[in-house]
């Protein structure tokens, strides 16, 4: 298909970008005060020079900076993310351990926010100017303006503590030994609160955007053509307006889906969700260089993957793109 070539081109560019990100992050993170040896020593509650020197040597921190950078980049090129000396495990293992949780969380949040956002946006645009439209838009604004973490805290308070309907944190019931369907059900129960709080903000974004886009497309000439054909309002909205209105929403959603991965830190923290956002934050505090860099790279790769995916979707929805480029 004609789709392959531009995607390949983008992949090449993406790899270069990723490498650049690796280098930049390397500089950034090494610029932070303290290093993993100091942190480890600090946590031990006792340290002497011998211990710190030992740690530095083991982490390769005794090497000149450019040597460290060089070997890091060389490892990245070979897809070797290095070893987390703090956690005593290869970084890739650590990330792969955590990645599924993050993906489940963010993808669910993403799907919820996208479908609900578009549905509500369409509903609001169909009732533009009426009370139900005002209600929906006001709600969306409220969701948009509510700090995420605050919504998360409130959600736990209400649904978990007061009502006891849903578990307030964690990924699954620990040690319950569920398997198969029971396990999936268990994970879903745990997923509801974090996914909906994470999705709330984006739902508001997509809803507002869908509504605006629907109203704008509704002004276009071809909608008039459709009306002149004698099509009914709902059919026009579905077949003509929505399909065109959804394109900018798809673009934005693609941009944000990638960012969701790195942006789930707050949700993962409040809900004790064992994802890579938290891994990043904790590794940052511990100056676990390889791990932070690894997480960064993986989430950046996610961003790129989602962008390419959006592009593909876009090509499917909009026949003009592939042909024009």
């Amino acid at each position, binding site marked *: 298909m004609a789709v392959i070539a531009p995607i390949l081109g983008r992949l090449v*560019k*993406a790899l270069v*970008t*990723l490498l*650049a*990100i690796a280098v*930049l*992050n390397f500089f*950034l*993170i090494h*610029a*932070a*005060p303290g290093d993993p040896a100091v942190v480890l020593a600090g946590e031990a509650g006792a340290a002497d020079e011998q211990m710190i020197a030992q740690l530095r040597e083991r982490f390769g921190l005794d090497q000149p900076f450019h040597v460290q950078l060089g070997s890091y980049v060389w490892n990245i090129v070979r897809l070797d993310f290095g070893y987390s000396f703090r956690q005593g495990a290869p970084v890739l293992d650590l990330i792969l351990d955590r990645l599924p949780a993050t993906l489940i969380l963010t993808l669910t949040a993403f799907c919820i926010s996208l479908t609900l956002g578009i549905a509500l946006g369409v509903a609001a645009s169909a009732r533009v100017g009426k009370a139900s439209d005002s209600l929906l838009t006001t709600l969306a*604004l*409220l969701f*948009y*303006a*509510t*700090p*995420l*973490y*605050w919504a998360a*805290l409130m959600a736990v*308070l209400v649904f978990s*503590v007061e009502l006891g309907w849903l578990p307030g944190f964690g990924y699954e019931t620990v040690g319950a030994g569920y398997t198969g369907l029971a396990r999936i059900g268990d994970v879903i129960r745990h997923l509801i609160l974090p996914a909906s709080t994470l999705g709330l903000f984006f739902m508001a974004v997509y809803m507002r955007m869908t509504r605006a886009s629907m109203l*704008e497309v509704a*002004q276009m000439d071809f909608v008039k053509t459709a009306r002149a054909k004698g099509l009914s309002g709902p059919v026009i909205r579905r077949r003509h307006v929505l399909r065109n209105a959804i394109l900018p929403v798809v673009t934005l959603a693609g*941009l944000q889906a*990638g*960012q969701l*991965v*790195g*942006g789930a*830190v*707050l949700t993962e*923290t409040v809900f004790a969700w064992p994802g890579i*956002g938290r891994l*990043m*934050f904790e590794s*940052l*505090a511990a100056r676990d260089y390889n791990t*932070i860099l690894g*997480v*960064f790279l993986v*989430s*950046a790769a*996610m*961003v*790129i993957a989602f962008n390419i995916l959006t592009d593909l979707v876009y090509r499917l929805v909009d026949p003009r793109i592939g042909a024009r480029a």
Partner: protein
Amino acid sequence: MIRRFASNKGAVIGVLILLAVIALAVSADLLFPRGPWAMVQRPFLVPFSTDGLPLGTDTLGRDVAAGLVHGARVSLLVGLVSTLVALMIGVPLGAVAGFYGGWADEGAMRFTEFFQTIPNFALAIVLVAILEPTLGSITLAIAIVSWPPVARLVRAEVMAVKRRDYVDAARLAGLSKFRILTGEVLPNTVSPIIVMASLMVATAILLESSLSFLGLGDPNAMSWGYMIGAARTVIRSAWWLSFFPGVAILLTVLALNLIGEGLSDALNPHLSRKGTA
């Protein structure tokens, strides 16, 4: 245009709320001369229970109302300044990319894409952690993660405007490229930038509060995010500690959004053309 803006009910409400917040922020020292940190009473006083402490006291017996008013300063300041900085990065970059095209465009866009690829919030966290949380570093970090959309918007607008005939006319008049860019093109891209900026201030306020919540706030500056972050451990026993700053953030962000939407309606060439053509 102002008339159209003023006829938008939401926008007017937004302006009123924002003006109120600004007024409070400006008069913070008059209203609460002792500052937000003074421990004035017993801790955990319930709102409306004690004279002179309408919103109660916090975990250390500090006046919540004082914190709210002084916090408005920090939140607004961070929001405004970081937006300005983001504009200062994004506008020139986008303008040069859109106007000169070719390698300049390619370079600037790769650069922008690069920053868009790095996970935003994570980058903000890393930056603040590295630079250590001070108002300056927080503002800078927020600006750094929020400029890429500005650059993209400005680039798109500039590319659209530069194709207008009057830009060609200016070239024919022998104006230098730089003068064409600054005199003819950029002024005509201002409206969407203003709209975007108003929303960016809102986002920046949220971002600052999120960083604060993670413990990456400036410990010397009372901000709303700090108040919520500090209060979350007592959210069960002292709801008002996180409720009031939460509402303050919500209202301010709401106001900025309403203003942004009002502006975008008022400045939207679509609508205005329909009205006059």
